[in-house]
């Protein structure tokens, strides 16, 4: 079996394990059976191992780091988010986060599988040490901001459910069958939302941005140094440069909101908009702008991944963006009505009384 076939095998096994793992996590989400999350997590670990093998093999036989064309960049990005998920689970139990991580891993790796895989030798502009520094650091920052988005969206969901009286504030005994109300309450408390406190989620979001923001800063600076050498200008308002700056500015606002204590809920929404900006920087600029170019006059700039279907990329971008916006819309709190508020109070009071 030649080395290219080995790489493909590793890739496909990883893709399969992420799919099965996603199914397990979705089942976990609806049944709250802990065992499913544990199995899903184990599978993700296997998938990560196969992906590591595939990426290393790819680097070897392509003759350049595995982040040049779309297929490689998307594989690498998938690997980083799975890796981040695994790192989170080293000291604490964040396995239930797989409910969102596994499906995204499958989606991004699946998108990669649709792209041409033949490795392209480096064009002159890419033959630079900066390829080894600028690109992976930028992708790692996107990964960190994804985790921040994950934590933020979970924070907002939990905050919403707590304010609507559907959740107890902390871990709750799972098998309380003494009353219908209680069972309804207890079913909500286990599972993804019940496991983490608001503070924990807020803290995870902040720590993720604390990792991602310096990484993005370094990514932008090294990109500018590279651009100065290769294009004669460290900043030309190329769409990729502009959107990475926008992302940086959004998270700059996030950090100010946090240090000025403007509220964790607001911070969570800002981090979520920051992730939308990441999606625009990572996917939007690379696919949507060239796609739009056939219809309207837009500048696509000098950044572009070699290979990569522009239509598939635009569809993927719309899918991810749509999903993110849907999640955010679902977190909005219902305005309290006169009849609702007292009821909510009674439910939690009754539950705590027992």
């Amino acid at each position, binding site marked *: 079996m030649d080395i290219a076939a080995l790489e493909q095998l590793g890739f496909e096994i990883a893709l399969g394990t992420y799919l099965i793992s996603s199914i397990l996590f979705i089942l976990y989400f609806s049944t709250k059976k802990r065992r499913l999350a544990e199995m899903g997590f184990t599978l993700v670990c296997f998938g990560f191992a196969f992906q590591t093998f595939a990426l290393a093999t790819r680097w070897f036989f392509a003759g350049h780091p595995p982040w040049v064309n779309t297929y490689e960049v998307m594989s690498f990005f998938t690997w980083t988010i799975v890796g981040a998920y695994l790192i989170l689970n080293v000291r604490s139990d964040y396995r239930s986060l797989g409910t969102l991580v596994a499906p995204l891993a499958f989606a991004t790796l699946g998108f990669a599988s649709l792209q041409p895989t033949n490795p*392209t*030798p480096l*064009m*002159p*502009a890419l*033959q*630079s040490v*900066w390829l080894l520094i600028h690109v992976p650091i930028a992708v790692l920052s996107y990964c960190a901001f994804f985790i921040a988005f994950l934590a933020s969206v979970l924070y907002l969901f939990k905050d919403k459910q707590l304010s609507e009286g559907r959740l107890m504030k902390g871990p709750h005994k799972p098998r309380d069958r003494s009353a219908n109300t209680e069972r309804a309450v207890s079913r909500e408390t286990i599972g993804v939302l019940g496991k983490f406190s608001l503070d924990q989620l807020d803290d995870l979001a902040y720590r993720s941005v*604390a990792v991602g*923001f*310096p990484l993005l*800063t*370094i990514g932008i*600076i090294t990109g*500018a*140094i*590279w651009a*100065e*050498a*290769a*294009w*004669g*200008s*460290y*900043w030309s*308002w190329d*769409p990729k440069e*502009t*959107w990475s*700056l*926008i992302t940086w*500015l*959004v998270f*700059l*606002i996030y*950090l*100010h*909101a946090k*240090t*000025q204590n403007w509220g964790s809920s607001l911070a969570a929404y800002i981090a979520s908009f920051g992730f939308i900006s990441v999606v625009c920087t990572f996917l939007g*600029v690379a696919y949507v*702008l060239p796609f739009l170019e056939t219809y*309207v*006059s*837009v*500048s696509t700039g000098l950044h572009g991944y070699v290979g990569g279907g522009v239509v598939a990329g635009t569809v993927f971008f719309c899918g991810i963006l749509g999903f993110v916006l849907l999640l955010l819309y679902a977190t909005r709190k219902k305005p309290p009505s006169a009849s609702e508020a007292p009821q909510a109070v009674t439910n939690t009071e009754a539950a705590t009384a027992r």
Partner: protein
Amino acid sequence: MNLVIKLLTSAKFAVAIIAVIILLSAVGTFYPGGDVVFGSWLFLFFVGLFALSTAFCSLTRVVPLWRDVMHPPIEISDQFLQKLPYHASISGVTVSQIKVHWKGYKWYETRSSETTFSFAQKGRIGRFGPHIAHFGVLMLLLGVAVGTAYGYANPYSNTITVIPQGGSQQVDGFVLQLNGFNVSYYDSGAVRDYRATVTLIDGSQAQTRDITVNGPITYGGLTFYLYGYDSNGVIESGEASWVAFQIKNDAGLPLVWTGSVVALAGIMIALYVPHKRIWIIWSNEHILVGAISNKSSARFFRDIDKFRAQALDHVARSKEI
């Protein structure tokens, strides 16, 4: 005037300005001929406001911050200590035991009648991180301004010069001679490398250098980049009939790079260096300890709790003996 100062020092105003810059930038990427937005007076106005806001925010806060961080209150009242986010009593420890546990901290001490006041702090620079970052950003923006203003001062800067094969061009007191241009290919037919070989003739001195896509050369304060070439007949003979070079002189570059690095350092200091403080009041009746930190306080307080528990445990065990 007071209102203007109040706005410029307000964090909310700063964030509002950043939000406007975000919106304008987003619009700019879709606007045909995008540079129109980024070079517009509107955009520059907001960038200017951003710079002013950054400067004022730091200028008004740095001096009081310095005073608070460098000259902390050491002799404090019991009430002050009890208002701190962490306060507790401790027993069974000596001054030296505490200093050993929190070594690496800067210790201060003062005595008043029967009471001793100890104070320790670590990570003072962490509080200045944001201001270091602000300073770096301002340096960067100044570098951009200098580069834009003086970049055009040299008449050769921001020009494209086309040199025919074997020809030369007078540039600002020296001569750029094109010796050869070579395009190499991969087996697949894709381009592997663009390389121009030039000689810089300055009076009696001459040096021959290569210019590649990622390898511009600098001479006489000007930088030469590969810009383009005439592809007619290149594939067969491997030579071009002319090569275009872009000439630039960006006087602001040193400021831009320095400012970026300073800003990055400030960001990392602000995010990763917590400023921790401990106060201890030793009187005849009790030993009180109070603490505060601007980040990761949970871990810091847990550590003090552990220390207190160990001390109490030690006291208990020595009582048994």
